[in-house]
C-alpha cells in the first residue's frame, strides 16, 4: 500500500484546470458539422439524404440542421459537393432551450430567469448528480465515468455523483428512454427533492435519434421530464459534459444560440 501512495504522490497532479486554464483534453475530437449557407447550392439535397437520423431538412429551399438529432457521423460533410457542410471542433453544445439546437438565421437571445439564477447560485459550489441510464449504448456512461478520472477530476469543481436520488440536485439521463425504463425514470425523478434539474445527456436523450421509432425505444426526454439543459453529442465528450454542468450552474456561458456556435 505505501508503494501506491508513493507512486501516486510521485506522479503528481494529472488534473487539468480547464475551464480556468489548461487543456480540455479534446484535441482532435470532431464536433457537430457547421453550415456555411453562402456556399450551399439550391436544388441539392445530398446532405439531407446522407443524414441517417434525419437531422437536416429543407426550409424554404435552404437546409436547416437540428443539432438535437446529430450523431456527429460526419457523413453530410463527406457528401456535400460544395463544401457548405464543414467539419468542426464544436462540441460544447449544451443549451437551455431545445429550440436553440435548430439552425436559424436570426440570432435570438434568451433572458435567464430570476428563479433559475437563484437556484443555480444555491448549488453553485456543491452539486450532486444522480445518473440514470435509460437505454444508452454505454458510450455516454463511459464519458460520464471519465469525469471522475484524474484528468477531469470533477470534484475540483464541487460536483459529485450520489447513489441516492434523495440526495441529488440533478438528474442526468442517458438513452432514448426504453419502455421498461419509462416508469423507473419517473420514479427516480419523483424521489428527488426540490429544487431539482435535468440534463438530457447525449443525442438519444435529447431527441431519441438514432434510436427513435423502434418497437422498444423512446424519443428522448422532450415529453417526459422538464429538461434544464439539452446536450446532444454521440457521445458528448467529458469537456462538453463539464460545460453543460457549469452552464446549468451559471458558471459558464452558453456557446450555441439559434443553432450557431459562438467562438
Amino acid at each position, binding site marked *: 500500500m505505501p508503494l501506491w501512495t508513493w507512486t*501516486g504522490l510521485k506522479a503528481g497532479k*494529472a488534473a487539468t484546470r480547464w475551464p480556468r486554464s489548461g487543456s480540455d483534453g479534446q484535441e482532435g475530437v470532431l464536433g457537430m458539422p457547421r453550415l456555411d449557407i453562402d456556399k450551399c447550392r439550391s436544388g441539392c439535397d445530398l446532405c439531407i439524404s446522407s443524414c441517417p437520423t434525419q437531422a437536416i431538412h429543407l426550409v424554404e429551399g435552404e437546409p436547416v440542421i437540428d443539432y438535437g438529432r446529430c450523431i456527429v457521423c460526419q457523413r453530410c460533410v463527406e457528401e456535400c459537393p460544395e463544401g457548405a457542410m464543414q467539419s468542426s471542433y464544436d462540441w460544447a453544445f449544451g443549451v437551455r432551450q431545445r429550440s436553440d439546437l435548430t439552425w436559424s438565421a436570426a440570432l435570438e437571445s434568451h433572458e435567464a430567469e430570476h428563479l433559475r439564477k437563484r437556484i443555480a447560485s444555491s448549488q453553485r459550489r456543491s452539486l450532486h448528480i444522480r445518473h440514470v*441510464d435509460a437505454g444508452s449504448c*454505454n458510450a455516454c456512461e463511459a464519458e460520464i465515468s471519465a469525469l471522475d478520472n484524474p484528468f*477531469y477530476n470533477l470534484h475540483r469543481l464541487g460536483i459529485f455523483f450520489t447513489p441516492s436520488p434523495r440526495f441529488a440536485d440533478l438528474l442526468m439521463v442517458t438513452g432514448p428512454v*426504453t419502455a421498461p425504463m419509462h*416508469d423507473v425514470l419517473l420514479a427516480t425523478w419523483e424521489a428527488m427533492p426540490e429544487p431539482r434539474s435535468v440534463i438530457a445527456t447525449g443525442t438519444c436523450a435529447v431527441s431519441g435519434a438514432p434510436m427513435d421509432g423502434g*418497437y*422498444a*425505444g423512446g424519443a428522448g426526454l422532450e415529453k417526459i421530464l422538464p429538461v434544464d439543459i439539452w446536450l446532444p453529442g454521440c457521445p458528448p465528450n467529458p469537456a462538453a459534459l463539464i460545460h453543460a454542468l457549469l452552464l446549468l450552474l451559471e458558471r459558464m456561458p452558453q456557446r450555441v444560440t439559434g443553432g450557431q456556435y459562438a467562438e
Partner: protein
Amino acid sequence: MNMASSLNSCSTRLVAADQLVAVAQECLNQQMRFLMAWHDWDDQTCVVRYLLSQKDHAEFVLLEVRDTDTLPSLAALVPLLGWYEREMHDLGGLEFSGHPESFPLIIHEGFSISPPPLGRTAADNPLQAHLQGSYEPPSMPEVQGDQVQDLYWGPVRADVVETGEFHYSYIGEAILHYHPRLFFKHRGMEARFAGQDAARSVYLAERVSGVGSACHALAYCQAVENAWGIEVPLRAQLLRVIIVELERLYNHFHYFGQLAKTTTLKVGAATGFLMEERVKQLASQLTGSRYLRSLLCVGGLRRDLQAEHLAHALEGIIDEGEAYLNRLHQTATHLDRLMGTGILSLESAFDQGATGPVARASGLDRDLRRDHPYAAYHKLRFNVPVREKGDAMARSEVRAESLREALALLVQASGRLKTGPVQAEYTPPSGEQQGLGWAETPRGTLMYAVRIRDGRLQRVKIKSPSFSNWRVFPLTVHGTNLMDYAINEASFGLTIAGCDR
C-alpha cells in the same frame, strides 16, 4: 422465393426438426462447440440456424432447420443455447418444446408486444408493434428457507452504471442464489437494421455497444463484405487492426481501473482510468473520435489515417502501462481478493458459452484473431494467453497479457503500413446474399450474420460477447459471498448495452 445464397466460411447441413437433438449430440461428440442460434423468415417460412465451431479451427458448421417454428429445445443438452431459444421465443414467437428455463428473457414480466417484433408478419413492417406494460418482479423460482433474505438491487443502482436489476437470495454473507435481470435497455437493434441500406448502416452497428464501437463496425462491415465478395485493400486492413487494438487497449486499462476500484486500491484505480483517458485522447488525435467511430465503412475506411508514427506516440503508454501492471501484480492486498474468487470451471465455461478472456482464463484456448483470422491478423504475430484456474486472478492475468499483446500489435501493425488505397471499389449486387462477419473484441467473440436483398438489409443477427458472458456469470456467484461480488463482477468486465441490444 428460395434462399439460394449460402453463408460464407460455413459448411451447411440441413436438419429435420425431429433429428435435431441427435445431430446436436453428434456434433458435441465431435467436440464442436455451439456459437449462436438465430431465426429468420424465408417468405413466411421459418428458418432456424445454429452456428458451430470445430476443434481444429476448420470452417464453421451451420445447422439449418426449416419449415417449422416449433422445435425441440437443445438447452438441456447445450445449456448456452438456453438464452438464444428464449430470445427467439420472446422476439420471434417461436416455440421450443421441453425448455428447462422457459421464463421471459428479453420481454419482461408485465410487458408484452404483439405481434412479436421479429416474428412471421413483422418482416413486412418491423415498426408496427410497440413494447407496452408496467414493471413486475421477475418470475424466477424463489429460494425459500429459514433466514433466507431477498435483495432486489436495481434497476437504478449506485454509481454511474448501466441499468440492470440484480436479485440476491442470501443468508448473512453467503449468496445462495443470484439472478441478474437485464434487457431493460433492449432497443430492438436487430430490427432497426431491417430495410436499411446495407452499405450505410455502419453507424447503427457502432451504437450497439459504445465501448465496442470499432469491433461492432468491423464485424458488421466484414459480414457485408463477405456477402458481396469485396476484397479490402491491405492498408485498410492494417488500419482496421490498429483501430480495434486501440479499442482493446482503452478497454483493458478501464478494466484494471475498475478491478482496482473494487479491491479499494484508490491510486491503482486512478492510474488505470488515467491510462484509459490517455489512450482515448491519443485515439481522438489520430482519428477525430474518442470511441473510434465514423471510421470504418463497407469496403475499407472512410478516410486514411496517418498512423505511421503510432509507435512513437505510444512510448509513454507502453512504459507506464508495464510499470502499472507490474505494480498491480506485486500488491498482495489486491491479489488476495482475486485468488480463488468466482471460479469458473472449464466444463461450465464450455457448456454455458463463456467467451474471450473469461473463457481463456478457464482453459478454453480460443481467439478468433488466430483461429479464424480476419483483417490483417494473419500477417501479424501475437500470443493468446491462457490460464487454467478460472478465478478472478486468472481472468485478470489473461487481460494483462492481452493488454501487452495489444500494445505489441499496435507497434507491429503501424510499422507495416505502406501507402495505398483504403477503400475498395464495388457496386452493391442485386438479388439476395448472406454474410457472416466476426471479431475478437476485448470481451470475446462478436458475430454478425446478415441477409441482404437488393442492397437492403433483411435480417441482421448480432451475437455479442456480453450476451454470452452474462449467461455464464451467475454460475460463479452462487455459493460465494456478498463481499466478493463486486470484485467478481469487475473481473468479468461485462457490458449491458451489448447484451441487451
